[in-house]
């Protein structure tokens, strides 16, 4: 009898336990087969590599307030354009979380961000092979309605490098990262403000890294053991208006990126937006000064990044407009951006039956102004071991890194026809952004048209036409033999794509990109490719064959260069 009672009690427990159990997961493989192609100058395979495979599989388990997950990754070897440090197979990520709404605790690999990420952000971006997860612990407390407190502690992922101090080589060393963040949403915590038109929230963070100062032994400089960074933020809203700003400050942090200067770092971001049905506008400004923050001070590019400096310019998605994408300059930049969206209402002369959507965007990035500082009775600028330079907060240098002015029309013409067209005027300082010393900047006009025709309920046809015309660099421009390599994708381009889709599963497309106006005759190549894609619910299979031009893949201002290649690419992804 007792046993039966126990069993039924156990059953009840087991049942609710099992009832609440959920599993889900996802899987993706990208595989590339590389071939020689004399036409686009591929006369040997990179490292003799014929095949590159990137893959991951992940499983999440949830049960009420508890969740856990793990991700397995395989790079056998990594595809061209990904870092060779990725080569390998293993369990890259795992975590377990308990969160009952009042207190939350996570152990394992943590992705989180404080404010806009100026002092702390860990994230993962598969398409870039980027993952700076913090392995350690996180506590989240919500002591009262509208108040969130967070604390994180741990060491970041660096490809497959070990996490133990004693197993880390200098090039793989990462210091300990600690951080706290507090956020107070007045509207949620003060009942009288719950439904107010006025909205306000405040936040503040502090992050420090504790580092081994001997990883570069040749230095006679004293590297600080602890480097702290703090940030404060305000979000305000009133009716249709929204304002937000965040300021961050970092103490001296000499590193390979800033040429081992001892200047403190600063960052300021602010945005003001207005929106009502059919109209939206936002203006953003940003100032970054010496804000690279890494858990290894010898790190280059985006390795070991603790923080994230968001670029604020427009993100293009078509192939020619996105060929020259801006990437953040952590040592200093002044940026501004304006975006306006407007829908001409239905039933007006210009709006037509469906309305017409217009968008305007302008963004520009310049350098900050740097003035020399006194060092041992001499004026020096950016000299190693000194405070580097002084910089007036609101001064903007004449040195322009980037400018993009674009205008877009999006119009449903009839039940079956849809048109999107965009014009872009671009300035891109290739020397600074890509580090090709001595190459002239790109000044170009770019246009594209994207037309969709619905043949019937199931089938549709899409045509994309694009052109990129540089103002100075084209057929007639003289390039010295020794500098040829820097001009590989320069000059005029034309591109076309035709896609035929059968809803909901199939889509077939052929595309060509042609660098017809390259100043170097042998680079005037066609990049032909064909793609078949099959989608079934959450499963996608895509096969592409043909040439891929040299380019830059950027997500969130973090970029990866992809070398020119010829071959076949297969992508399989699914989630459940």
């Amino acid at each position, binding site marked *: 009898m007792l046993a039966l009672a126990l*069993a*039924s009690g156990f*059953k009840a427990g087991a*049942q609710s336990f*099992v*009832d*609440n*159990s*959920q599993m*889900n997961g*996802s899987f993706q493989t990208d595989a590339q087969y590389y071939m020689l192609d004399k036409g686009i100058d591929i006369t040997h395979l990179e490292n003799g590599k014929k095949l590159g495979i990137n893959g991951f599989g992940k499983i*999440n388990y949830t049960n009420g307030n508890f*969740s856990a997950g793990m991700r397995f990754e395989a790079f056998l070897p990594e595809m061209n354009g990904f870092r060779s440090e990725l080569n390998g197979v293993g369990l890259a990520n795992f975590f377990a979380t308990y969160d009952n709404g009042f207190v939350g605790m996570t152990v394992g690999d943590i*992705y989180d*961000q404080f*404010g806009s990420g100026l002092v702390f*952000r860990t*994230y*993962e971006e598969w398409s870039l092979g980027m993952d700076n997860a913090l392995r350690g612990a996180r506590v989240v407390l919500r002591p009262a309605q509208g108040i969130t407190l967070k604390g994180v502690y741990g060491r970041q992922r660096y490809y497959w490098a070990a996490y133990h101090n004693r197993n880390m080589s200098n090039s793989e060393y990462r210091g300990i990262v600690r951080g706290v963040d507090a956020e107070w*949403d007045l*509207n*949620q915590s003060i009942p009288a403000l719950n439904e107010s038109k006025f*909205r306000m929230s405040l936040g503040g963070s502090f992050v420090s890294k504790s580092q081994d100062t001997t990883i570069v032994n040749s230095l006679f400089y004293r590297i600080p053991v602890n480097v702290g960074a703090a940030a404060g933020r305000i979000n305000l*809203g009133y009716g249709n208006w*929204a304002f937000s700003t965040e300021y961050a400050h970092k103490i001296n942090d000499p590193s390979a990126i800033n040429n081992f200067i001892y200047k403190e770092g600063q960052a300021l971001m602010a945005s003001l937006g207005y*929106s009502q*049905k*059919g*109209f*939206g506008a*936002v203006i*953003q400004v940003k100032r970054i000064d010496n804000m690279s923050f890494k858990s290894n001070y010898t790190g280059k590019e985006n390795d070991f990044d603790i923080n994230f400096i*968001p670029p*604020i310019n427009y*993100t293009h*998605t*078509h192939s020619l407009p996105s060929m020259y994408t801006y990437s953040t300059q952590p040592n200093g930049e002044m940026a501004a951006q304006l*975006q*306006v*969206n407007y829908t001409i209402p239905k039933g007006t002369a210009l709006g037509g039956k469906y*309305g017409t*959507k217009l*968008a305007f965007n302008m963004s520009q990035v310049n350098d900050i102004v740097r003035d020399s500082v006194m060092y041992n009775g001499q004026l020096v600028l950016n000299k190693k071991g000194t405070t580097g330079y002084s910089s007036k907060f609101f001064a903007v240098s004449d040195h322009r890194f980037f400018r993009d002015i674009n205008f877009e029309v*999006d119009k*449903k013409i009839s039940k079956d026809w849809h048109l999107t067209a965009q014009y872009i005027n671009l300035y891109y300082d290739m020397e600074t952004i890509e580090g090709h010393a001595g190459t002239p900047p790109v000044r170009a006009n770019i246009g594209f048209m994207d037309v*969709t025709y*619905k043949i019937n*309920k199931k089938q*549709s046809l899409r045509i994309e036409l694009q052109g990129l015309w540089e103002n100075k660099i084209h057929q007639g421009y003289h390039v010295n033999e020794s500098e040829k390599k820097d001009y590989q994708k320069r000059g005029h381009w034309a591109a076309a794509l035709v896609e035929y*889709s*059968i*809803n*909901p599963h199939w889509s077939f497309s052929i595309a060509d990109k042609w660098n017809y106006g390259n100043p170097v005759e042998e680079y005037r190549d066609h990049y032909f490719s064909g793609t078949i894609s099959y*989608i079934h*619910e*959450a499963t996608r299979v895509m096969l592409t064959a043909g040439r891929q031009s040299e380019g830059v893949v950027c997500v969130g*201002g973090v970029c990866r260069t992809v070398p020119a290649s010829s071959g076949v690419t297969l992508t399989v*992804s699914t*989630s*459940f």
Partner: protein
Amino acid sequence: MTLLLMALMVTGLHAQSKSDLPNVTLKDLNGKNVNIAKLTNNGKPIVLTFWATWCGPCIKEHNALNDVYADWQDETGVKIYAVSIDDSRSTAKVKPTVEGKGWDFEILLDVNSDLKRAMNVSNPPHTFLFDGNGKLVYQHTGYIEGGEDELYEEILKLAKKK
């Protein structure tokens, strides 16, 4: 006894599982916290779509959904939540973009991809359909012209079951 216990366990295993909406808290456009596990629509279907201001096919899908949304609501009572995965570089642009394009969906901000990870979204657009009890019944990745028709067939199936 052991057999009985096992039998009971098996019945337990076969029990209908509860909501598939994950316990993740996002913010809406007014900065208010919204716990996804607590989303409700009076027993009517809920659609979650993942998108970003920089994702061309997502904008197309949402324009198409917005054209038919009012009709869908009248006929089935469905509610659409459009989850933006824009990070801090473009969160300030989400509201002006949504309003400027005249979308009528509920907008949620997934600034550091917490919900995207919890729901295993690899690339936007990715659309999920939940029944009135939060049970996942259909999902679709990518957008092909006319893709909203297939989603609507699934919503209609749910509405008829009621």
